[in-house]
């Protein structure tokens, strides 16, 4: 039936062409230049495709069934796909590349809410990786190329290419009947069909700008309808290092809600009185002006920006109320707190092939895998693959412990001589850190804090949490890590106010949760944020200029971040001594 209609159209085309031939043609103009231009662009497109196609992955269950798509992002074989592609494939997968070869792969990390999964292809150190672009500058009208394996057409794994334009940016797709939420995504009219899921979206110059994951399917069934959605690469990259740590990465949440107000405004409707935002002075009716650096004109805008951040990130915001304009930073709290990879509704999971083949089994038979592969997957509650978390923990903790061990006896008492800037001028102070206590003597005043059972009242009022945080530092440097109930590597984040991307290690000790920030330059943490009470602000310290003094590694100055002003007060470390017990 379809052919009949197409035939009628063709016939009309012929008739119209006949009309032209009979002289009713539009005025003849130079058509040479556009044709040359079109050929040039075609040539460029072919070259771009040759360059990017090797990075496109066909993701299959280890049994070789089913299939989605993915994209390689590093030469050691890390590849990004959709959570709804890898969910249901088990921990190990098979991946086909356009060289026709199949590689084994293991799951690394997942972001269920954002529908992103990170997998590790094995067997090469020179995998061809896609180069990311900046999805924030993508705009409606840009030409795009979607690559992947729709309908599992390519038996040799050379990806199918579809072409289109960006139909809209910063789209929000509701979590329909599931937890998958597409925020700030790129809407395209390139054909996206079952099997394209997890595959890369490229701009016309071949820069990777998104992951094709979702489409508006309707009356035609589950085939292209001209409206598909790609997760922006900027969001993927923001989660990437956490995924690399083998985590079930959670999205962030604020402890206040926002509604669309009149005249294109985002208005705060409710604020939790236990929240950091409340302590910074945010109240209902305030107009939220910016969030994470983006200006807001609606609740949708807010939801869009918020959805691109992982839990635990600290983000800046500004608002206006009857008393004027304010700014602050707040830490995002967990949205779902998944302890296990969550189940997807049936239709969201890996899509069956064109023949409607049955869904592959949930878990592959890992026992049949060689030992060196099985070692790459460690199951643990709260993690996607604990093996990759161990790798990062070791990378962060080993150099730290090696150097800290030089400090000698763990029972020794450390004494730091400080210069504290007071209104009267720089004032000497003495900080004494033992295995059990942290004490500060400043002029006539003195505070003594127990490391195991700290009390808020024992903190110096000018620097609340300082002593407890330094007690945790002592425990971190202690070679015996069993003092912490939990240690986990938590990827990387933008530290504020340092405004640097730093690796994060989280330690828990009772109710005290410390986030230690590391750069690539040294073994010691460059900052720490310590949460030690639900009702109080975090103690946020910058640990700058680490050096060994009398064998003891110490920062040359300790910065105390004021949570209200975000300003840093520096306490100079003049000298450090170690006293044996």
């Amino acid at each position: 039936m379809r052919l009949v209609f197409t035939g009628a159209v063709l016939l009309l085309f012929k008739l119209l062409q006949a009309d032209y031939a009979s002289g009713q043609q539009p005025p003849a103009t130079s058509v040479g230049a556009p044709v040359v231009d079109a050929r040039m662009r075609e040539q460029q497109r072919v070259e771009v495709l040759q360059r990017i196609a090797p990075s496109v992955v066909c993701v299959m269950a280890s049994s070789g069934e089913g299939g989605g798509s993915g994209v390689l992002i590093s030469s050691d074989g890390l590849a990004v796909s959709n959570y709804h592609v890898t969910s249901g494939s088990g921990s190990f997968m098979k991946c086909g590349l356009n060289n026709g070869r199949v590689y084994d792969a293991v799951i690394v990390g997942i972001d269920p809410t954002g529908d992103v999964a990170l997998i590790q292809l094995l067997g090469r150190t020179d995998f061809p990786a896609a180069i990311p672009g900046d999805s924030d500058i993508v705009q409606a009208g840009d030409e795009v190329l979607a690559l992947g394996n729709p309908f599992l057409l390519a038996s040799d794994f050379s990806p199918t290419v579809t072409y289109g334009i960006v139909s809209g940016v910063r789209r929000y797709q509701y979590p329909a009947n599931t937890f998958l939420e597409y925020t700030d995504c790129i809407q395209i009219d390139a054909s996206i069909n079952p099997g394209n899921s997890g595959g890369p979206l490229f701009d016309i110059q071949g820069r990777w700008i998104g992951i094709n994951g979702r489409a508006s399917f309707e009356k035609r069934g589950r085939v292209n309808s001209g409206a598909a959605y790609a997760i922006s690469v900027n969001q993927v990259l923001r989660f990437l290092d956490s995924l690399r740590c083998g985590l079930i990465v959670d999205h962030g949440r604020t402890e206040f809600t926002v509604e669309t107000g009149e005249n294109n405004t985002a208005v705060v409707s409710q604020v939790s009185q236990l929240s950091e935002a409340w302590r910074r002075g945010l109240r209902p009716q305030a107009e939220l002006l910016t969030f994470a650096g983006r200006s807001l004109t609606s609740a949708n805008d807010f939801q869009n920006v918020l959805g691109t951040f992982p839990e635990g990130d600290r983000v800046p915001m500004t608002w206006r109320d009857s008393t004027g304009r304010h700014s602050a930073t707040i830490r995002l709290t967990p949205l779902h707190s998944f302890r296990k990879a969550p189940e997807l509704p049936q239709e969201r999971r890996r899509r069956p092939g064109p023949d409607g083949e049955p869904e592959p089994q949930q878990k592959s038979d890992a026992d049949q895998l060689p030992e060196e592969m099985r070692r790459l997957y460690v199951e643990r509650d709260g993690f996607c693959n604990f093996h990759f978390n161990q790798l990062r923990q070791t990378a962060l903790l080993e150099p730290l412990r090696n150097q800290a061990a030089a400090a000698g006896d763990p029972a020794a008492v450390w004494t730091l001589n400080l210069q504290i800037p007071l209104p009267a001028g720089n004032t000497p102070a003495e900080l004494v850190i033992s295995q059990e206590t942290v004490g500060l003597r400043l002029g006539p005043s003195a505070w003594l804090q127990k490391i195991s059972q700290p009390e808020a009242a024992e903190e110096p009022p000018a620097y609340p949490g300082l002593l407890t945080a330094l007690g945790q530092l002592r425990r971190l440097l202690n070679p015996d890590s069993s003092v912490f109930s939990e240690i986990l590597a938590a990827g990387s984040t933008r530290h504020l106010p340092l405004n640097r991307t730093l690796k994060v290690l989280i330690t828990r000790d009772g109710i005290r949760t410390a986030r230690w920030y590391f750069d690539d330059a040294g073994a010691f943490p460059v900052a720490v944020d310590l949460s030690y009470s639900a009702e109080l602000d975090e103690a946020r310290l910058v640990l700058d200029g680490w050096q060994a003094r009398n064998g003891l590694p110490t920062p040359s100055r300790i910065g105390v971040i004021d949570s209200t002003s975000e300003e840093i007060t520096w306490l100079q470390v003049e000298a450090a001594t170690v006293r044996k017990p």
Partner: protein
Amino acid sequence: MAAGRGSNGPQTLTFTACSRAGRGRSFPSQVFQMHHLFQITSRRRFLSTAATLLAAGPAMAAAGQQTPAQPALDPRQVVVKLFGAGVGSLDSYGTGILVSPQGHVLTIANHLVSTGFLTAVTADGRRWPVETLATSTEHDAAIVRIQARPEDMFPFLDLQQAVDVEPGTPVLAWSNMFRVAAGNEPVSVVHGVIAAAVPLEASQGRWKFPVKTPVWILDAITNNSGAGGGLVVDEAGRPVGLIGREIRHDRSRIWVNYAVPLTALRPAVTAMLEGRRVTPSAATADAAPLMSDRDLTARFGLTLLPAVVERTPAWVDAVTPDSPAARAGIQRGDLILLVGDSVITSVTDVRRQMTSAVPGRELSVTVNRDNQLIALKLAVPPSPRK
């Protein structure tokens, strides 16, 4: 879908020059470039600037300076999202095009327009109540009007700028498809090519597509929820067509992607803007004998207002106790909006639907009662013996 971008027409610039440094060619750049102009102006100024720019379009076109360097309009500024009452399988959203600075909006004459309760969201994110001014069943078009203050000015599309294009012309289609952009986000755009200009034989249930003149067949997927009433422009940003309904081709049963040429709509729009009713031609009138008012009362227990004017609204004047209408819960004063999936615009429409109702079946009847939409089930009684 075919990737089909034909070779660029003679009026195409080298687009690379227009795109931002180091980026791919934006398609088509000048249509999108306007956007930057607007961003730097305040809203009020922006509106008047836009209106001035748009109004300047036809003068340039008339002077024969049809160069793409002088874009006629930014489609995003003139395409509005419509939100209304969706009932049953019919969507609650659609698209329209601003065609006057006073806020007249051209859209298709579908159920959204007929049932009322319409809200328009303009490009700046503002929401407006909308009233229906006129419909042209013959053109399947309607004019609704944003209820704005006299001082409100809207950027608009001057229909005098509309052009006819040849098959093979690359086009962009802007619409509120799938309600992707529900707030103040810009509408969606898809790309394609005019595949043909043909008279269209298509239908939606019992409704026949009424336009007899050729329409544009598009190779873009525009046959989507909420896309109807959207705008098709050529590469130079010149207006070309009004995106049509979600209908199937009569013979092939495929979903047709089509747009009605704006040039063909111009006279009807002019008439509707002047407040004149565009009467359906004889060709579209239904020749089947209709159930009489008396039969309607006798069989269904339903008495409507007498059809004193051409399109008497389907108000229920009386309901016979213990009749099918009474059992369905229909009450005096109800305004019947839908019977099944068919939009009711007059008492005649109700009679037409009841004429073809199958005895023993249940008909869904949607009424407006005190500004609330109420869905009812009406059991169709057996036919009277002849």
